[in-house]
Protein backbone atom coordinates (compact mmCIF):
# COMPACT_ATOMS: atom_id res chain seq x y z
CA UNK A 1 0.00 0.00 0.00
CA UNK A 2 1.64 3.13 -1.26
CA UNK A 3 2.30 5.69 1.42
CA UNK A 4 1.75 8.34 -1.26
CA UNK A 5 -1.94 7.58 -1.43
CA UNK A 6 -2.12 7.59 2.31
CA UNK A 7 -0.41 10.96 2.58
CA UNK A 8 -2.49 12.44 -0.23
CA UNK A 9 -5.61 11.19 1.53
CA UNK A 10 -4.69 12.59 4.92
CA UNK A 11 -3.70 16.00 3.59
CA UNK A 12 -6.73 16.32 1.32
CA UNK A 13 -8.98 19.27 2.17
CA UNK A 14 -11.89 16.94 2.82
CA UNK A 15 -10.08 15.00 5.53
CA UNK A 16 -8.55 18.12 7.02
CA UNK A 17 -11.96 19.74 7.40
CA UNK A 18 -13.21 16.66 9.20
CA UNK A 19 -10.26 16.93 11.54
CA UNK A 20 -10.94 20.63 12.08
CA UNK A 21 -14.53 19.92 13.05
CA UNK A 22 -13.50 17.05 15.29
CA UNK A 23 -10.89 19.15 17.02
CA UNK A 24 -13.21 22.13 17.45
CA UNK A 25 -15.90 19.94 19.02
CA UNK A 26 -13.47 18.15 21.33
CA UNK A 27 -12.03 21.52 22.41
CA UNK A 28 -15.60 22.66 23.09
CA UNK A 29 -15.49 25.54 20.60
CA UNK A 30 -18.91 27.02 19.89
CA UNK A 31 -18.44 26.44 16.16
CA UNK A 32 -21.56 24.95 14.62
CA UNK A 33 -23.31 24.58 11.30
CA UNK A 34 -27.04 25.26 11.40
CA UNK A 35 -29.03 22.05 11.12
CA UNK A 36 -31.10 23.22 8.17
CA UNK A 37 -28.03 24.38 6.28
CA UNK A 38 -26.33 21.03 6.85
CA UNK A 39 -29.47 19.21 5.76
CA UNK A 40 -29.51 21.28 2.59
CA UNK A 41 -25.89 20.38 1.89
CA UNK A 42 -26.56 16.70 2.49
CA UNK A 43 -29.38 16.88 -0.02
CA UNK A 44 -27.12 18.59 -2.54
CA UNK A 45 -24.50 15.88 -2.16
CA UNK A 46 -26.97 13.07 -2.65
CA UNK A 47 -28.54 14.68 -5.70
CA UNK A 48 -25.13 15.32 -7.23
CA UNK A 49 -24.00 11.76 -6.63
CA UNK A 50 -27.24 10.33 -7.95
CA UNK A 51 -27.25 12.46 -11.08
CA UNK A 52 -23.67 11.66 -11.93
CA UNK A 53 -24.20 7.95 -11.46
CA UNK A 54 -27.33 8.07 -13.58
CA UNK A 55 -25.65 9.91 -16.42
CA UNK A 56 -22.83 7.40 -16.46
CA UNK A 57 -25.32 4.55 -16.48
CA UNK A 58 -27.10 6.17 -19.40
CA UNK A 59 -23.80 5.91 -21.26
CA UNK A 60 -22.84 2.37 -20.32
CA UNK A 61 -26.24 0.77 -20.04
CA UNK A 62 -26.96 -2.38 -18.03
CA UNK A 63 -25.38 -5.79 -18.30
CA UNK A 64 -25.23 -9.09 -16.53
CA UNK A 65 -22.29 -8.15 -14.33
CA UNK A 66 -24.17 -5.12 -13.03
CA UNK A 67 -27.14 -7.31 -12.22
CA UNK A 68 -24.91 -9.74 -10.37
CA UNK A 69 -23.28 -6.95 -8.36
CA UNK A 70 -26.68 -5.57 -7.41
CA UNK A 71 -27.88 -8.92 -6.16
CA UNK A 72 -24.65 -9.46 -4.29
CA UNK A 73 -25.00 -5.98 -2.77
CA UNK A 74 -28.49 -6.64 -1.50
CA UNK A 75 -27.29 -9.93 -0.11
CA UNK A 76 -24.36 -8.23 1.60
CA UNK A 77 -26.55 -5.59 3.19
CA UNK A 78 -28.82 -8.35 4.50
CA UNK A 79 -25.99 -10.56 5.74
CA UNK A 80 -23.38 -8.17 7.16
CA UNK A 81 -25.63 -7.36 10.14
CA UNK A 82 -25.58 -11.05 11.08
CA UNK A 83 -21.81 -11.01 11.20
CA UNK A 84 -21.80 -7.68 13.03
CA UNK A 85 -24.36 -8.93 15.52
CA UNK A 86 -22.42 -12.10 16.26
CA UNK A 87 -19.20 -10.16 16.72
CA UNK A 88 -20.84 -7.58 18.97
CA UNK A 89 -22.43 -10.23 21.17
CA UNK A 90 -19.06 -12.00 21.52
CA UNK A 91 -16.69 -9.05 21.75
CA UNK A 92 -18.80 -6.65 23.79
CA UNK A 93 -21.30 -6.55 26.57
CA UNK A 94 -24.02 -5.08 24.34
CA UNK A 95 -27.46 -6.56 24.83
CA UNK A 96 -29.54 -8.02 22.02
CA UNK A 97 -31.32 -4.81 21.05
CA UNK A 98 -28.26 -2.57 21.07
CA UNK A 99 -26.24 -5.17 19.18
CA UNK A 100 -28.96 -5.53 16.55
CA UNK A 101 -29.35 -1.78 16.10
CA UNK A 102 -25.60 -1.30 15.78
CA UNK A 103 -25.37 -4.20 13.35
CA UNK A 104 -27.91 -2.52 11.06
CA UNK A 105 -25.57 0.44 10.63
CA UNK A 106 -22.78 -1.77 9.36
CA UNK A 107 -24.92 -3.56 6.82
CA UNK A 108 -25.99 -0.22 5.42
CA UNK A 109 -23.63 2.34 3.86
CA UNK A 110 -22.19 5.84 4.17
CA UNK A 111 -22.53 7.88 1.02
CA UNK A 112 -19.81 10.33 2.06
CA UNK A 113 -17.33 7.52 2.50
CA UNK A 114 -18.34 6.31 -0.94
CA UNK A 115 -17.73 9.75 -2.44
CA UNK A 116 -14.39 10.12 -0.72
CA UNK A 117 -13.36 6.76 -2.15
CA UNK A 118 -14.52 7.76 -5.63
CA UNK A 119 -12.34 10.84 -5.46
CA UNK A 120 -9.33 8.98 -4.06
CA UNK A 121 -9.65 6.42 -6.84
CA UNK A 122 -9.97 9.09 -9.48
CA UNK A 123 -6.85 10.84 -8.20
CA UNK A 124 -4.81 7.65 -8.57
CA UNK A 125 -5.86 7.45 -12.19
CA UNK A 126 -8.13 4.42 -11.80
CA UNK A 127 -11.66 4.60 -13.23
CA UNK A 128 -14.91 3.38 -11.70
CA UNK A 129 -18.45 2.81 -12.95
CA UNK A 130 -21.51 4.97 -12.44
CA UNK A 131 -23.80 2.10 -11.51
CA UNK A 132 -22.12 1.79 -8.14
CA UNK A 133 -24.25 4.74 -7.04
CA UNK A 134 -27.26 2.52 -7.63
CA UNK A 135 -25.51 -0.21 -5.67
CA UNK A 136 -25.01 2.25 -2.83
CA UNK A 137 -28.67 3.21 -2.86
CA UNK A 138 -29.95 -0.35 -2.72
CA UNK A 139 -27.58 -1.22 0.12
CA UNK A 140 -29.05 1.49 2.37
CA UNK A 141 -32.09 -0.36 3.66
CA UNK A 142 -31.93 -4.18 3.65
CA UNK A 143 -29.78 -4.14 6.78
CA UNK A 144 -32.63 -2.49 8.67
CA UNK A 145 -34.79 -5.55 8.07
CA UNK A 146 -32.07 -7.92 9.21
CA UNK A 147 -31.70 -5.94 12.40
CA UNK A 148 -35.38 -6.38 13.18
CA UNK A 149 -35.00 -10.14 12.95
CA UNK A 150 -31.85 -10.07 15.03
CA UNK A 151 -33.48 -8.03 17.76
CA UNK A 152 -36.06 -10.80 17.90
CA UNK A 153 -38.79 -10.56 20.46
CA UNK A 154 -37.66 -7.09 21.44
CA UNK A 155 -38.35 -5.89 17.92
CA UNK A 156 -41.63 -7.71 17.67
CA UNK A 157 -42.92 -6.10 20.80
CA UNK A 158 -41.94 -2.69 19.47
CA UNK A 159 -44.43 -3.37 16.75
CA UNK A 160 -46.96 -2.60 19.42
CA UNK A 161 -45.72 0.80 20.48
CA UNK A 162 -48.72 3.00 20.99
CA UNK A 163 -49.53 5.17 17.99
CA UNK A 164 -47.50 3.17 15.53
CA UNK A 165 -49.16 2.61 12.18
CA UNK A 166 -49.15 -0.39 9.93
CA UNK A 167 -46.67 0.25 7.19
CA UNK A 168 -44.75 3.07 8.87
CA UNK A 169 -41.63 0.92 8.99
CA UNK A 170 -42.00 -0.27 5.44
CA UNK A 171 -42.28 3.37 4.39
CA UNK A 172 -39.19 4.22 6.40
CA UNK A 173 -37.25 1.39 4.79
CA UNK A 174 -38.40 1.85 1.22
CA UNK A 175 -39.17 5.56 1.00
CA UNK A 176 -36.73 7.20 3.38
CA UNK A 177 -35.35 10.48 2.12
CA UNK A 178 -31.82 9.21 1.38
CA UNK A 179 -32.96 6.33 -0.76
CA UNK A 180 -35.56 8.34 -2.65
CA UNK A 181 -33.17 11.24 -3.28
CA UNK A 182 -30.35 9.01 -4.44
CA UNK A 183 -32.44 6.72 -6.64
CA UNK A 184 -34.61 9.58 -7.89
CA UNK A 185 -31.60 11.61 -8.96
CA UNK A 186 -30.06 8.55 -10.52
CA UNK A 187 -33.14 7.99 -12.65
CA UNK A 188 -33.21 11.67 -13.57
CA UNK A 189 -29.56 11.51 -14.59
CA UNK A 190 -30.31 8.48 -16.67
CA UNK A 191 -33.31 10.02 -18.43
CA UNK A 192 -31.83 13.42 -19.01
CA UNK A 193 -28.51 11.97 -20.12
CA UNK A 194 -25.27 13.74 -20.96
CA UNK A 195 -26.97 16.62 -22.70
CA UNK A 196 -29.42 17.54 -19.97
CA UNK A 197 -26.75 16.98 -17.37
CA UNK A 198 -24.43 19.46 -19.07
CA UNK A 199 -26.79 22.25 -18.07
CA UNK A 200 -26.65 21.46 -14.35
CA UNK A 201 -23.05 20.33 -14.22
CA UNK A 202 -21.71 23.75 -13.14
CA UNK A 203 -23.76 23.35 -9.98
CA UNK A 204 -23.63 19.64 -9.26
CA UNK A 205 -20.10 18.77 -10.38
CA UNK A 206 -17.76 21.75 -10.45
CA UNK A 207 -18.16 22.91 -6.83
CA UNK A 208 -18.83 19.42 -5.45
CA UNK A 209 -15.50 18.86 -3.66
CA UNK A 210 -15.75 22.22 -1.94
CA UNK A 211 -19.28 21.61 -0.70
CA UNK A 212 -18.12 18.24 0.53
CA UNK A 213 -15.54 20.01 2.70
CA UNK A 214 -18.25 21.98 4.48
CA UNK A 215 -20.21 18.79 5.07
CA UNK A 216 -17.15 17.06 6.46
CA UNK A 217 -16.59 19.97 8.79
CA UNK A 218 -20.09 19.34 10.09
CA UNK A 219 -19.48 15.61 10.34
CA UNK A 220 -16.33 16.32 12.31
CA UNK A 221 -18.30 18.52 14.68
CA UNK A 222 -20.96 15.84 15.04
CA UNK A 223 -18.39 13.11 15.55
CA UNK A 224 -16.53 15.17 18.15
CA UNK A 225 -19.65 15.95 20.12
CA UNK A 226 -20.78 12.36 19.79
CA UNK A 227 -17.47 11.13 21.18
CA UNK A 228 -17.68 13.57 24.08
CA UNK A 229 -21.22 12.49 24.86
CA UNK A 230 -20.99 8.81 24.05
CA UNK A 231 -17.57 8.03 25.43
CA UNK A 232 -18.87 6.66 28.69
CA UNK A 233 -21.16 4.19 26.87
CA UNK A 234 -18.39 2.64 24.77
CA UNK A 235 -16.18 -0.10 26.17
CA UNK A 236 -12.91 -1.08 24.60
CA UNK A 237 -14.44 -4.07 22.80
CA UNK A 238 -17.03 -1.89 21.17
CA UNK A 239 -14.37 0.53 19.98
CA UNK A 240 -12.36 -2.32 18.50
CA UNK A 241 -15.46 -3.53 16.71
CA UNK A 242 -15.63 -0.15 14.96
CA UNK A 243 -12.38 -0.95 13.19
CA UNK A 244 -12.48 -4.73 12.90
CA UNK A 245 -15.93 -4.81 11.35
CA UNK A 246 -15.14 -2.60 8.32
CA UNK A 247 -12.05 -4.69 7.65
CA UNK A 248 -14.09 -7.89 7.72
CA UNK A 249 -16.83 -6.39 5.55
CA UNK A 250 -14.27 -5.16 3.05
CA UNK A 251 -12.68 -8.61 2.91
CA UNK A 252 -15.99 -10.28 2.14
CA UNK A 253 -16.71 -7.64 -0.48
CA UNK A 254 -13.25 -8.25 -1.93
CA UNK A 255 -14.01 -11.96 -2.34
CA UNK A 256 -17.26 -11.13 -4.11
CA UNK A 257 -15.44 -8.64 -6.33
CA UNK A 258 -12.95 -11.35 -7.19
CA UNK A 259 -15.69 -13.83 -8.04
CA UNK A 260 -17.61 -11.27 -10.10
CA UNK A 261 -14.37 -10.17 -11.78
CA UNK A 262 -14.87 -6.50 -11.03
CA UNK A 263 -12.30 -4.02 -12.34
CA UNK A 264 -10.06 -2.46 -9.68
CA UNK A 265 -11.96 0.82 -9.29
CA UNK A 266 -15.33 -0.85 -8.95
CA UNK A 267 -13.93 -3.41 -6.54
CA UNK A 268 -12.53 -0.63 -4.34
CA UNK A 269 -15.88 1.13 -4.28
CA UNK A 270 -17.74 -2.08 -3.53
CA UNK A 271 -15.36 -2.81 -0.65
CA UNK A 272 -15.80 0.75 0.61
CA UNK A 273 -19.58 0.41 0.58
CA UNK A 274 -19.39 -2.82 2.53
CA UNK A 275 -16.95 -1.33 5.01
CA UNK A 276 -18.85 1.91 5.54
CA UNK A 277 -21.54 2.35 8.16
CA UNK A 278 -24.65 4.49 8.05
CA UNK A 279 -25.12 7.57 10.24
CA UNK A 280 -28.17 9.25 8.70
CA UNK A 281 -30.78 6.82 7.41
CA UNK A 282 -30.28 3.87 9.75
CA UNK A 283 -30.15 5.83 13.04
CA UNK A 284 -33.50 7.36 12.17
CA UNK A 285 -34.96 3.98 11.28
CA UNK A 286 -33.64 2.51 14.53
CA UNK A 287 -35.38 5.19 16.60
CA UNK A 288 -38.61 3.98 15.01
CA UNK A 289 -37.98 0.27 15.01
CA UNK A 290 -35.81 -0.31 18.07
CA UNK A 291 -36.27 2.79 20.24
CA UNK A 292 -34.73 1.06 23.25
CA UNK A 293 -31.35 0.88 21.55
CA UNK A 294 -29.05 3.76 22.46
CA UNK A 295 -27.99 6.21 19.74
CA UNK A 296 -25.01 7.10 21.90
CA UNK A 297 -23.65 3.64 21.13
CA UNK A 298 -24.40 3.12 17.47
CA UNK A 299 -23.95 6.69 16.32
CA UNK A 300 -20.71 7.23 18.18
CA UNK A 301 -19.35 4.01 16.79
CA UNK A 302 -20.40 4.66 13.23
CA UNK A 303 -19.60 8.37 13.04
CA UNK A 304 -16.83 8.65 15.60
CA UNK A 305 -14.82 5.51 14.92
CA UNK A 306 -15.65 3.76 11.67
CA UNK A 307 -16.15 6.82 9.51
CA UNK A 308 -12.79 8.46 10.31
CA UNK A 309 -11.06 5.09 10.09
CA UNK A 310 -12.44 4.49 6.59
CA UNK A 311 -11.79 8.05 5.52
CA UNK A 312 -8.11 8.01 6.43
CA UNK A 313 -6.79 4.45 6.55
CA UNK A 314 -9.58 2.33 5.13
CA UNK A 315 -9.97 3.82 1.67
CA UNK A 316 -6.27 3.69 0.73
CA UNK A 317 -6.18 0.12 2.01
CA UNK A 318 -9.26 -1.00 0.07
CA UNK A 319 -7.86 0.65 -3.04
CA UNK A 320 -4.57 -1.13 -2.56
CA UNK A 321 -6.27 -4.51 -2.23
CA UNK A 322 -8.64 -3.79 -5.09
CA UNK A 323 -5.72 -3.10 -7.39
CA UNK A 324 -4.32 -6.51 -6.52
CA UNK A 325 -7.54 -8.40 -7.13
CA UNK A 326 -9.15 -6.22 -9.80
CA UNK A 327 -9.37 -7.39 -13.39
Amino acid at each position, binding site marked *: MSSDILLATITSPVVLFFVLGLGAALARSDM*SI*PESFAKGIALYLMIAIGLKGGVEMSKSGLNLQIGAVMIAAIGLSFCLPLLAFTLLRRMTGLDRVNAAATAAHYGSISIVTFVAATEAIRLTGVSSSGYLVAVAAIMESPAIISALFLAGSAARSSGHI*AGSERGELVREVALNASVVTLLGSLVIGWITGVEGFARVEPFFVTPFQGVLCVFLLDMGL*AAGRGLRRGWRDLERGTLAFGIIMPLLSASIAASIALILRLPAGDAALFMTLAASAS*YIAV*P*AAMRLAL*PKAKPSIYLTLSLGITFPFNLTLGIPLYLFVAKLIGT
Partner: protein
Amino acid sequence: METRRRLELIVERMAQSRAGNILKDAGIKGYTVLDAVAGYADGLDWQSDADISLAQDMVVIIAIGDNATIDRALQNLHQLLDAHIGVLSVSDVQIMRPERF
Protein backbone atom coordinates in the same frame (compact mmCIF):
# COMPACT_ATOMS: atom_id res chain seq x y z
CA MET B 1 -63.76 31.67 29.74
CA GLU B 2 -63.86 27.93 30.23
CA THR B 3 -61.24 25.57 31.53
CA ARG B 4 -59.53 22.98 29.36
CA ARG B 5 -56.30 21.03 29.68
CA ARG B 6 -53.04 21.79 27.94
CA LEU B 7 -50.88 18.77 27.28
CA GLU B 8 -47.19 19.38 26.61
CA LEU B 9 -45.23 16.44 25.29
CA ILE B 10 -41.48 16.79 24.80
CA VAL B 11 -40.58 13.81 22.65
CA GLU B 12 -37.99 12.66 20.10
CA ARG B 13 -38.81 13.69 16.55
CA MET B 14 -38.99 10.16 15.25
CA ALA B 15 -41.90 9.55 17.62
CA GLN B 16 -43.77 12.67 16.56
CA SER B 17 -46.11 10.95 14.18
CA ARG B 18 -46.85 8.18 16.70
CA ALA B 19 -47.70 10.78 19.31
CA GLY B 20 -49.86 12.53 16.73
CA ASN B 21 -51.71 9.31 16.00
CA ILE B 22 -52.40 8.79 19.68
CA LEU B 23 -53.77 12.30 20.04
CA LYS B 24 -55.94 11.92 16.95
CA ASP B 25 -57.26 8.57 18.13
CA ALA B 26 -58.17 10.16 21.44
CA GLY B 27 -60.25 12.66 19.50
CA ILE B 28 -58.15 15.81 19.85
CA LYS B 29 -59.22 18.58 17.46
CA GLY B 30 -55.76 20.01 16.92
CA TYR B 31 -52.18 20.14 18.08
CA THR B 32 -49.06 22.15 17.35
CA VAL B 33 -45.43 21.05 17.12
CA LEU B 34 -42.36 23.15 17.95
CA ASP B 35 -38.71 22.30 17.39
CA ALA B 36 -36.46 21.95 20.40
CA VAL B 37 -32.90 23.09 19.69
CA ALA B 38 -31.07 21.88 22.76
CA GLY B 39 -31.60 20.18 26.06
CA TYR B 40 -30.25 18.23 28.94
CA ALA B 41 -31.04 14.87 30.51
CA ASP B 42 -29.16 12.08 32.27
CA GLY B 43 -26.18 14.35 32.81
CA LEU B 44 -25.76 14.95 29.08
CA ASP B 45 -26.32 18.06 26.96
CA TRP B 46 -27.60 17.77 23.42
CA GLN B 47 -27.89 20.27 20.58
CA SER B 48 -29.74 19.84 17.33
CA ASP B 49 -27.03 21.62 15.31
CA ALA B 50 -24.54 18.98 16.43
CA ASP B 51 -26.66 16.05 15.37
CA ILE B 52 -26.12 15.05 11.79
CA SER B 53 -28.40 12.05 11.93
CA LEU B 54 -31.59 13.80 13.08
CA ALA B 55 -31.98 10.73 15.28
CA GLN B 56 -31.54 12.66 18.48
CA ASP B 57 -33.70 15.70 17.83
CA MET B 58 -36.61 16.53 20.09
CA VAL B 59 -39.89 18.30 19.43
CA VAL B 60 -42.49 19.83 21.73
CA ILE B 61 -46.12 18.97 21.03
CA ILE B 62 -48.80 21.22 22.49
CA ALA B 63 -52.40 19.99 22.51
CA ILE B 64 -55.33 21.68 24.18
CA GLY B 65 -58.36 19.53 24.77
CA ASP B 66 -61.13 18.71 27.17
CA ASN B 67 -60.73 16.46 30.17
CA ALA B 68 -61.99 13.34 28.53
CA THR B 69 -59.88 13.70 25.40
CA ILE B 70 -56.70 14.36 27.32
CA ASP B 71 -57.39 11.46 29.66
CA ARG B 72 -57.92 9.13 26.73
CA ALA B 73 -54.60 10.25 25.23
CA LEU B 74 -52.61 10.00 28.45
CA GLN B 75 -52.81 6.25 28.72
CA ASN B 76 -51.26 5.65 25.32
CA LEU B 77 -48.78 8.50 25.59
CA HIS B 78 -47.57 6.95 28.80
CA GLN B 79 -46.99 3.73 26.92
CA LEU B 80 -45.28 5.62 24.09
CA LEU B 81 -42.84 7.03 26.61
CA ASP B 82 -41.97 3.52 27.76
CA ALA B 83 -40.31 3.07 24.40
CA HIS B 84 -39.43 6.61 23.33
CA ILE B 85 -37.40 9.39 24.89
CA GLY B 86 -39.57 12.14 26.27
CA VAL B 87 -41.39 13.94 29.03
CA LEU B 88 -45.09 14.67 29.47
CA SER B 89 -46.95 17.26 31.50
CA VAL B 90 -50.50 18.57 31.71
CA SER B 91 -51.87 21.83 33.06
CA ASP B 92 -55.13 23.75 33.21
CA VAL B 93 -55.78 26.64 30.84
CA GLN B 94 -58.65 29.01 30.17
CA ILE B 95 -59.97 29.17 26.64
CA MET B 96 -62.58 31.28 24.87
CA ARG B 97 -64.23 29.08 22.25
CA PRO B 98 -65.21 25.91 24.01
CA GLU B 99 -66.60 24.39 20.82
CA ARG B 100 -63.09 24.42 19.29
CA PHE B 101 -61.53 22.03 21.82
